[in-house]
Structure formats: C-alpha cells, structure tokens
C-alpha cells in the first residue's frame, strides 16, 4: 500500500492539483479555503509553476480563463462569497467551452454569512451559478482522500468534456486532517487544437469566444453543449450506496453530512432499523438511478443537509415523488449530529409510509 501522509483537506486539494499537472493557480484570500493558496504559494515557485494572488476573485477567474485559453490545466479556489464573484467568469468559461477547475470550500451564507461549514451553495453549483444555460461537473468529496482524488478527476473530466469542474467541499472538509495517499494515476491532458497558443503562421487563427449574435447559431451552440452534457450524465455519474439492499428508509447526504449520516445508519442498524445511505459524489450530474430504485422499496427518504433544503429538490425529482422525502438539517455553520439524524430515522421508521 502506498505511503500515506497526514494533510488538511485544503492542502490535499493543492498537492493533488500539482500531481494532476496543474502549474497555474490564481486565488484571493478567503476563509475557510486560504490554505489552498498558501500551499500553492510555497510549492509553485519550486516546480516552475505560477502562483499569483489576484486583486479579486473576479480577476482570478479571468486569469484562469486566460490560462485555460492557452490550453493548460489551471485552477482557482475560494469560498461561498468569492464563488459568487467568480460567477461571471464561470459563465464565460462555459460559453467558451474552456476546461478549468474551481474549488468552493463552502461557508454559511447568504451575504458575508459566517466562516463555518455549509452546503448552502448546492443550488448555485448544480444549476451553474452564473447567467445562461450551462452546467459544471460538481464533485462532492466526503474525506480528505476524496478531496485529493476528486481534484485529479476534476481536471480529467474538465479536459475530456471542455467544461468547468467544481469541487464542492465545505469548511470541515477543508480544515480537517486525515491520512491521504497521493499515489495517483493521472490521465495526461488531451491535445487541444482549439487553444490560443499562437498560429505559428501555420494555421488559421483560433478564437476563444462566448459571443454569438445570430440567434440560430447561439441556439445551435446551446443544443450541442447540452448534447455533450447528456454524455457526461450517461458516463460520469458517481455515487456510493451503503446498506441500501434491504433498506426501508434511505438517507440522502453528501460531503460532511454523509459522514455524519453513516454513523447514524450504523447505530440505527444496531437498533434493528433497516436504513441505508445514498451518497451522491457527483452533484451534477445528479445520480437519479439509485433514488429511483430506492423509491420502489423504501418508505421514506431523509435528505440530510447543511442547508435549508436544496439537494432535497433533486432527491424528489429523482424519486419521482413516489415516496415521502423529508429534511433533516442544520444551517449557519452548524452540523447535524448523528443523534439528530438517528432521531429523524426513528421518526421515519415509526411512520407507516405513504
């Protein structure tokens, strides 16, 4: 087994990005993700890479746009209020079909909110976040190991589909330390004949652009983009099922909420309650299949979230309203306890179902 090192989640993202071949990082300080920038500031100069503290999150995402246009792997990271500022740039990345990695280590909102963990940017991430019809590939790690692995995966998927990948983590994932193995196989970046690297007077000029003034053409571009999204949905959806085979109650949870929920599942099972966990790893594309299946044999799905109930809408859509879906949540930087989740499970168990 590969050697493991003890790392913070934020540091694991940074080191994994370097392992994935990313040599350009642009960021702006914001709690609770600043360790990503601090780590990059130390490492990048030693490996011939670029770390640049931008004047704002807006500038940072546009620097990302520049490096992505030049065809190299590039990333930025921020936390909730900063991601709102990046929304413009993320929309432009989508419009120009540029690959990039954006990390959101979420904190409580809205507005300046707080600095403690949250999952309340789920809508923003899974619906795109900026203006226009588009998606990002949204990856939700629930361990430091996954922070690292999904970072590598994020770069690979971004290149493969010419999309932005977002790591949707939270303050706990960013700050907690766990042993992590950084021994990955990384798929090399594909050829990017569209990149603006200079014509060398050997080809027609490349244009990176999101402007399209003729409605018929802009419609076609949107249609083609969504055909690509359909392939992503078909091939790249990821989730984990835990004790779902005989489950009569299902919990839906991602990230830190999934870890808490897993403890609650173990305790409930000890008490003889048949409960399982479905943990989406890709939030977009959302894993509809396990929820559709669960809806045929559970009497209730409990969505455990650090938000006022955002993923719950996708759970309802995926289970086609065939089963009761309830919310178990804490917000504002608070985290549900295993006991709180267990109580919700017991309550569901005492109900007769639909």
């Amino acid at each position, binding site marked *: 087994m590969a050697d493991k090192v003890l790392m913070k989640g934020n540091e694991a993202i940074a080191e994994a990005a370097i392992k994935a071949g990313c040599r350009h990082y642009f960021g702006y300080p914001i709690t609770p993700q600043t360790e990503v920038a601090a780590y990059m500031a130390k490492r990048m100069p030693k490996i011939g890479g670029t770390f640049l503290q*931008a004047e704002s999150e807006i500038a940072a995402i546009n620097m990302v746009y*520049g490096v992505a246009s030049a065809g190299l792997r590039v990333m930025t990271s921020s936390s909730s209020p900063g991601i709102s500022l990046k929304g413009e740039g993320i929309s432009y990345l989508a419009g*120009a079909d540029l690959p990039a990695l954006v990390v959101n280590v979420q904190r409580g909102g809205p507005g300046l909110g707080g600095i403690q963990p949250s999952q309340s940017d789920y809508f923003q991430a899974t619906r795109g976040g900026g203006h226009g019809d588009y998606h990002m590939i949204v990856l939700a790690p629930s361990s430091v190991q996954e922070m690292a692995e999904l970072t590598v995966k994020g770069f690979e998927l971004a290149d493969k589909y010419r999309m932005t990948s977002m790591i949707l983590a939270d303050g706990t994932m960013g700050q907690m330390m766990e042993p992590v193995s950084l021994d990955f196989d990384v798929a090399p970046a594909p050829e990017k004949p569209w990149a603006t690297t*200079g014509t*060398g007077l050997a080809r027609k000029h490349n*244009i990176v*652009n999101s*402007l399209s003034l003729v409605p018929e053409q802009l419609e076609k571009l949107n249609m083609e983009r969504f055909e690509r999204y359909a392939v992503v949905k078909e091939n790249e959806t990821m989730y984990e099922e835990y004790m779902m085979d005989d489950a009569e109650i299902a919990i839906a949870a991602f990230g830190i909420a999934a870890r808490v929920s897993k403890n609650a599942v173990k305790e409930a099972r000890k008490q003889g309650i048949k409960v399982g966990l479905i943990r989406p790893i890709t939030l977009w594309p959302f894993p509809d299949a396990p929820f559709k299946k669960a809806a045929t044999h559970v009497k209730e799905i409990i969505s455990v979230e650090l938000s006022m109930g955002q993923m719950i809408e996708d759970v309802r859509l995926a289970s086609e309203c065939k089963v009761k879906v309830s919310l178990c949540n804490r917000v504002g930087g608070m985290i549900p306890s295993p006991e709180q989740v267990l109580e919700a499970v017991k309550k569901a168990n005492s109900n007769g179902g639909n």
Partner: protein
Amino acid sequence: MIVYDKPHALLDVPLHYCPGCTHGIVHKLVAEVIDELGIEGKTIGIAPVGCSVMAYDYFACDMIEAAHGRAPAVATGVKRADPTKVVFTYQGDGDLASIGMAETVHAAARNENITVIFINNAIYGMTGGQMAPTSLVGQVTQTSPYGRDPKLCGYPIKVCELLSELEGPEYLERVTVNSIPHIRAAKKAIKKAFMNQIEGKGFSLVEVVSSCPTNWGMTPQNALKWIEEKMLPYYPLGVYKDRSANAEVQK
C-alpha cells in the same frame, strides 16, 4: 510597384465600424506593428466588450474575447501560461477605465509584461452613446442628457496620469489619430509598447484619443476637430512614463 498593402495581420474582411470611426485606423496601426516585428505567429490578442468586441474576427493572430473589463486579467493568464508569447489587449474607455479599472490598475502595478491599446473616445459606443468614465464635463450623452455634471457624477478619469503614479508600469503614452502626423506618432508609440514586451520590460499602455462621430452626433471631420479643440486640452498628448528611457513626465 506596390506602394501600399494591407497588413497581413489584419484579415481581409469588412469591419463593422461606423463611417469616420477611428477604430479602423488603430486596428491597422496595431496590425502594421505586428507585421513589422514579425510576431503574428506568436501573438495572442484579447478583445474587450464594446465596439471593438469583434476585433477577434479582424486580427489574423490567435484571439480571445474577454468579459467586460477583464482583458488585463485574461492577458495575465495567457502571458503566464507562456511568457514567450506576445499578448496584447485592445480596450475602450468603459471597458478599461470603468468596469475594468481594478484589473487595469493591478496589471499595471504588477508590471505585467503585456501591451494595452486603450481607445478613449469619451463615450460608450456599442450601447448607443452613454456617458463614459472619460466623458468630458458638460458632454451630452444618452445618460447625461443635460451635459456631464461633475456635482452629480464627478470628473473624467485621466488614465495615463493616474497610472503614472504607480511604481509598476514601464511605459504610458497618450496619442491621438486625428491627423496624419498624429497617426505617425501613434504608430511609433504602439510599436514601442510591443517592443517593450518583447524585450521583457513590462506593462506598456498606449491611450489613443479617438472619435465617435455617430454617438457624438457630428460629421467625421467635425469629430476630428472636436478631438483637437475639446479632448486634447483635457487629455494632453505625451509620454507619462517611460522607465527605461528615464524620461521626464511631459505634459
């Protein structure tokens, strides 16, 4: 004998600019400089949002279309991705001095090794003639219908003067293109701004005082006259910074 030829770096396509607009002249000057320096194959241009948004269709080099005001940040990314490439932005006054002021100031402060061509025509042209950060006091526009009132919206921004206070930038010059001698001087400045980048000297910005006959409501000739009589007294031509030449600031 060929006495004049269209520069290779400018594609042979119809430009969409209004009659009498000076964008065409500045496009040609930039393209001539790219030709003369033999850098078309390794140059990447960044187009703004505004009248010159479609500059990406006109220059023969690789082109990127940036979000409004963000061209210096995008250029920073492109240049950092490969410092051997030549990277220029082409931006108007709304783009560079209003929504993109932060990106402009910080690219200059970092002495980012890029070339910025700044078109100052004192108005938002693309959206139909609204007040710009560089619109003159008293200037009538769609959003200052009674003339720009400094009590209400302050004074026009002098970009070269403002940036010249920074340690960072290498070269700042204001030129205009309202006469043949001025066009020649403008070309010299643009060439220097590209040469500086090739020589690794850093951030070079050329402000080109330009005309917008359509939105100024003037004939092309009167617009050129208006530059001379109204704009140049407020926006004096000259070199505002030239660190390598250690030149004194001329006003």
